[in-house]
């Protein structure tokens, strides 16, 4: 290229610096556009360390009501094999202190509370395996199996019955990995009773009911 020979057809000279930059954008346009998605993919690929943050293994999604009735909705999955949806209306009937319940009384320094709940669900909804807690004013969770003393001669139940014993409805058969259902159809509505011991001086302010993570229900204790 002979730079010394001016010609009428020449373009006006542009600064060399700007020309080089523009060409760089142009030359690499595709990869620049891909840069953001690729970065996102790289971050996701290293995301195994944060598995506990994004996998639904903790109870992180409360469904809350200040009242005593809540319609609770969640999807559940059993390992990777079975899945379903749970829709139920949960009602706190009463939360009262009690001398004893189900063969247990409060240990010294504790007060026993009897929680009566009403569950209402279609007969084909899996309702087994619930847990019930009482929450104190500061959000501390109190659960069953602690702070109680067995009454002499009594045979306290081992775990909470979330469904009627004689007609539990669907349950998971872990041996064959299927859902099996009881012969008697479960009634549309039934009562569940739990007993939890709280330290003296702590008043329960909320009832927490949960099945599978990450969803759980928070209801008020009523009057």
């Amino acid at each position, binding site marked *: 290229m002979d730079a010394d020979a001016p010609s009428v057809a020449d373009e006006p000279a542009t600064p060399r610096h700007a020309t080089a930059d523009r060409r760089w954008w142009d030359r690499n346009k595709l990869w620049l556009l891909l840069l953001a998605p690729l970065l996102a993919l790289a971050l996701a690929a290293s995301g195994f360390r944060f*598995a*506990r943050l994004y996998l639904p*293994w903790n109870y992180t999604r409360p469904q809350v009501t200040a009242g005593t009735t809540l319609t609770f909705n969640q999807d559940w999955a059993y390992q990777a094999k079975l899945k379903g949806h749970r829709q139920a209306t949960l009602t706190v009937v009463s939360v009262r202190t009690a001398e004893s319940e189900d063969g247990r009384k409060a*240990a*010294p*320094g*504790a007060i026993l509370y009897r929680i009566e709940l009403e569950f209402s669900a279609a007969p084909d909804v899996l309702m087994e395996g619930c847990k019930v807690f009482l929450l*104190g004013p500061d*959000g*501390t*969770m*109190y*659960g069953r*199996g*602690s*702070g109680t*003393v067995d009454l002499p001669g009594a045979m306290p139940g081992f775990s909470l019955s979330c469904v009627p014993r004689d007609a539990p409805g669907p349950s998971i058969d872990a041996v064959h990995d299927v859902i099996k259902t009881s012969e008697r159809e479960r009634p549309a509505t039934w009562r569940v009773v739990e007993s939890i*011991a*709280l*330290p*003296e001086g*702590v008043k329960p302010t909320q009832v927490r009911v949960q099945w599978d993570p990450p969803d759980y229900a928070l209801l008020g204790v009523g009057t």
Partner: protein
Amino acid sequence: MIRASRETLLTILLIVAALAVGNVITARLPKADEVANLPFVHTAALGVPVTMRTGTFAVTKVDASPIVGTQLDTAVTGGLFLVLTVDVTASGEPLYPASDDLRIVASDGREFGGRPPVREVCGPAQPGLTLTCMLPVEITPDALAGSRLRLPAANRDIVGPGESEYAEIDLGISADAAAELAGRTTPILLAKPTVKGK
């Protein structure tokens, strides 16, 4: 054949030197992982309560015997069972203390512990109510003197990093006390966990 000019050669040498120096520096600087994994250690002594994020813990008594048992079951060892009486007050939510993950650490670094052959399951401890448990640990008598309890704040999660917060509690066992403990033969009955009244 590549005709390496002097500049190319120099560039290559400089790059290699820079990499080597960088390697040495990064090897000596603390890594983010190491810092993030530094444990949170609370030191305490026998009888002194230690507060961790999951609750408050105190070792109130130390006993020993070659035979320990529950109402249903008995275990015998050729060494010794060190039985710790521990007071647990959970905070925030009910807690099963890490009775299988705790370790008795001897002064020479040997660690003893794990799931004992008999146990009374300690827990759940209700927040605000102190639960007293008896925890046996199988150990050799020569490891008793100067040993300490390393108690993790919680049981190890199945997924995720190991527990990084723990209490190191000096059990205060002198050489004489160790000899006396090693000589005990009375079988120890592990009491069921009980709630301590106020």
